[in-house]
């Protein structure tokens, strides 16, 4: 072991910053925990994710129901139009027959 080694070990020996430092670090850590963003809290993060999933599921379900109703409405409209067309052609037929009967008189 050389004298330079000894001198370097002496110069670079560890120094304790003291109990005030410990207290300061613990206070800062407690403060950091208090200031922790909600997203950094695991339980809240899972709860938020679950709530978001529920909202998305409910929204999706509502949207599906709305689309189903819209489709049924379109179908009903088509059926009504068809029924009106049939009724119209039947009325035309009836009117033609009446006219022919009147003409035969």
């Amino acid at each position: 072991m050389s004298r330079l080694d000894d001198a370097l070990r002496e110069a670079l020996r560890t120094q304790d910053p003291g109990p005030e430092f410990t207290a300061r670090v613990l206070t800062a850590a407690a403060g950091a925990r208090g200031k922790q963003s909600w997203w950094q809290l695991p339980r809240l993060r899972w709860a938020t994710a679950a709530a978001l999933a529920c909202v998305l599921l409910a929204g999706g379900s509502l949207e599906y129901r709305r689309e189903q109703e819209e489709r049924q409405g379109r179908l009903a409209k088509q059926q009504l139009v068809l029924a009106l067309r049939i009724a119209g052609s039947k009325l035309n037929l009836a009117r033609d027959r009446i006219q022919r009967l009147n003409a035969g008189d």
Partner: protein
Amino acid sequence: MAAATNPVMGREPLPDFASLVRANQAMVFSIALHYAHDRSAAEELAQDVFLQLHRSLGDMQSAEHAARWLRKVAVHRSIDHARRSRFRPQVGLEDAPEPVTPAAAGDPMLTERLRRLVASLPEKPRAVMILRYQEDLDPEEIAATLGMPLRTVKSHLQRSLVMLREKAGRAFTPAAGRQNLSTEMGEVE
């Protein structure tokens, strides 16, 4: 504060945060202090390192793991701090009085001069010297801590010692101190 649960079975439970701070604060603070040669900057750096530990406490497996982690983070944070602030020693090396006689063991002037000289080394060699002489790590451990090839660590140690010997003045000249540089180099190897 209760001790944190250790995820790895069969190991000692991880001590609580306060115990980890008390057990490692001298090491972390001294790395920062010897690196920056500035007490307030060292305290700030050391506090940041412990706050980072607080956030990563769940990843720690044992007290020893935490100590190794703290040493590594302290060195890397000190290097980053030096790069960010473009740290230069506040007192020039020329201002430090050069010893004119062989230094006695525990000479406060020599000790302070050596601290300044170490703090004036380039970033990586400075980190190598602090880990070698403060933490008493061997070159392999230093290489692992700094993520540096072993050969580079040895080279930094050799060059730094030569530079320190030259700049520390007469205290370590062969005539005065009966130093043998080749012995030292052999030790590094």
